[in-house]
């Protein structure tokens, strides 16, 4: 029986679910069979002794052959089952039961209690009086300063230039090794409303710090998948000076609202529809995808779009309450990773959505 134990221990990864239920008769069969050669011979015949497992064949080529044959059989059975189900549905016609909804990660998500209800007065008051209130009341218009970390390389410089064509009323300045805490008071005195710092690592941009200026929150993002204009296939001509429209998708929770408002306050309030340009921030599972398109309505319902402009993906790392002060500032939200829990890994994907 010890030999049997070793053999069934060896049936690790290739464990077939069909055969797993027959573990106990398998041990009995091993005791009866004795050697392994006797198991190879019955493979030629269609009937196998009960309790036979493909993973116990020691010969790799044979084992592979048996496995592929089994897989093909599974596929045939699955196809047959599907056809049968389809036939049954057609036969029943209207009386067929409704199709079951497939399980997706989005479906299985736990409802986030911080989702903002549009009728909520407390949140509405909070938003009406927060740091972005002056922008949303049309009292200030945005003026953006774009800069990078010190000594940027080509990709980052070009990304900054392209970003400044996308965001109206923005200015790019070279960093020259200045401390952010010294830049910020100077910006405030020159009436800048937002500061964007693109962080670079190993010659590619990988981080974005967005700080709303007078005393507003600072968001720190991880930036990935940066594509400059010339890397975008089938793109249109360069964007014009018209003010684009903004689309903010899926920023439903309270944190999502704060971040969404930060993005909205980068662009002036009055989009020029003549320009037919639109900047999209699409949030899905806590990744924010930025795209810049030009659209044209071919008919009432059909739109053609051309992608212009850079594209990148952002993921929020932290949202800090004041202007940039990573050491002594107070954080409103910090991304915490629990390294060894899958459930918390999936839960983390519902922060902003």
């Amino acid at each position, binding site marked *: 029986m010890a030999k049997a134990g070793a053999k069934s221990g060896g049936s690790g990864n290739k464990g077939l679910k069909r055969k797993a239920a027959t573990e106990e008769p398998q041990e009995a069969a091993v005791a009866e069979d004795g050697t392994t050669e006797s198991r190879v011979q019955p493979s030629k015949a269609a009937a196998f002794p009960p309790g036979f497992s493909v993973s116990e064949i020691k010969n790799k080529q044979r084992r592979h052959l048996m496995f592929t044959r089994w897989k093909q059989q599974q596929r045939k059975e699955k196809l047959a089952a599907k056809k049968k189900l389809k036939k049954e549905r057609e036969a029943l016609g209207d009386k067929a039961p409704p199709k079951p909804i497939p399980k997706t990660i989005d479906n299985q998500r736990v409802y986030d*209690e*911080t989702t903002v209800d549009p009728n909520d007065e407390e949140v509405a008051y*909070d938003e009406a*009086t927060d740091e972005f209130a002056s922008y949303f009341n049309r009292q200030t218009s945005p003026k953006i300063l774009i800069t990078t970390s010190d000594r940027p390389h080509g990709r980052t410089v070009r990304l900054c230039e392209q970003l400044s064509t996308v965001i109206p009323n923005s200015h790019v300045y070279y960093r020259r090794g200045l401390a952010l805490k010294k830049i910020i008071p100077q910006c405030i005195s020159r009436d800048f409303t937002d500061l964007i710092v693109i962080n670079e690592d190993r010659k590619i941009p990988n981080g974005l710090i967005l700080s709303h200026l007078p005393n507003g929150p600072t968001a720190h993002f991880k930036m990935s998948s940066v594509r400059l204009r010339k890397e975008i296939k089938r793109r249109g001509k360069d964007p014009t000076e018209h003010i684009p429209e903004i689309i903010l998708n899926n920023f439903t929770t309270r944190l999502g609202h704060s971040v969404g408002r930060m993005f909205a306050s980068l662009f002036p309030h009055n989009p020029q529809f003549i320009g037919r340009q639109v900047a999209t921030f699409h949030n899905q599972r806590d990744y924010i995808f930025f795209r810049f398109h030009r659209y044209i309505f071919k008919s009432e319902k059909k739109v053609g779009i051309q992608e212009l402009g850079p594209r990148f993906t952002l993921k929020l790392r932290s949202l800090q309450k004041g202007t940039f002060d990573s050491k002594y500032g107070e954080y*409103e939200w910090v991304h915490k990773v*629990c390294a060894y829990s899958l459930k918390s890994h999936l839960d983390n994907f519902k922060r902003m959505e």
Partner: protein
Amino acid sequence: MAAAAARWNHVWVGTDTGILKGVNLQRKQAANFTPSGQPRREEAVSALCWGAGGETQILVGCADGTVKNFSTEEGRFQGQRHCSGGEGIFRGLAQVDGTLITCVDSGILRVWHDNDKEASSDPLLELRVGPGVCRMRQDPARPHMVATGGKENALKVWDLQGSEEPVFRAKNVRNDWLDLRVPIWDQDIQFLPESQKLVTCTGYHQVRVYDPASPQRRPVLEATYGEYPLTAMTLTPGGNSVIVGNTHGQLAEIDLRQGRLLVCLKGLAGSVRGLQCHPSKPLLASCGLDRVLRVHRIRNPRGLDHKVYLKSQLNCLLLSGRDNWEDEPHEPQEPNKVPSEDTETDELWASLEAAAKRKLPDLEQSQGALQTRQRKKKRPGSTSS
């Protein structure tokens, strides 16, 4: 609002928008209370303390310099007094023998005579503590002793019945290994029970214990935790350790006998603004900038007990120290509550009998919602008032 149920609230939280929230963990409900019916940012709550007479009154210090009196029995704000003088928000509120002690950011500590008149009388006593105060705390054992500390403002212990000079003035630690002066930033102070010792936590992630009884004015014990400023601190039942929270939302329990870290508590995502432990049960309430009130259990087994999403940023909290956590069994049920509610609503209802059905916006919703919320256990909901 659920006026009679207000007294059974376990935690009272003050927010940035001026709303005082009462949370009942047993029934998983949260109720909003505002002095003027509307949230106002000028009334942002910066300090909370229990008033006279057990835990029936709460003193709420607001950003516009007023201290409002809230009664938990009746569930509404009763009076307010304007405690003017000094710039900055309240950093400490305390109550002793019918007088009120307030301390503001600019360092002016005043003792006011506690009369119910709204007119602001002159303070009984005024002390200048030094600018940049971050916390003023009253010794629960000797209510006339208070301690203050802040940014570049060393820890000082004042005796309000004694002289105008501090009883104990702490000295800064020695210069560090580069022979540079170590900066001071005392963020929170606690008095240790059954001794004269004090514990402070600093913005430079240090936890220090001072002993006024010893001839040494420097800290007796120093421990560090993390790399971020520690913003709040509380004593655990038992008195041997403190729990500190920092601006990244990390909570840690630090043993004061050896100065080492015992446990960390998970869950908070934002800066910790308020922490309080229950005096006898192993429960810790924490609130912060991530708009969630959490109650952790700190011993056997350690973990999160309750989590309540309250929609505004939370500034400070008060945990009820009472022993029976459940409500009184003979709580009058909702139908009985209606007669004791405002008569205005009854008149309104009467006038509505003839007209078409119309729902009252706040009161009736919370009445009906209270019933349903007891069944809905999934969401620890928070309501509008």
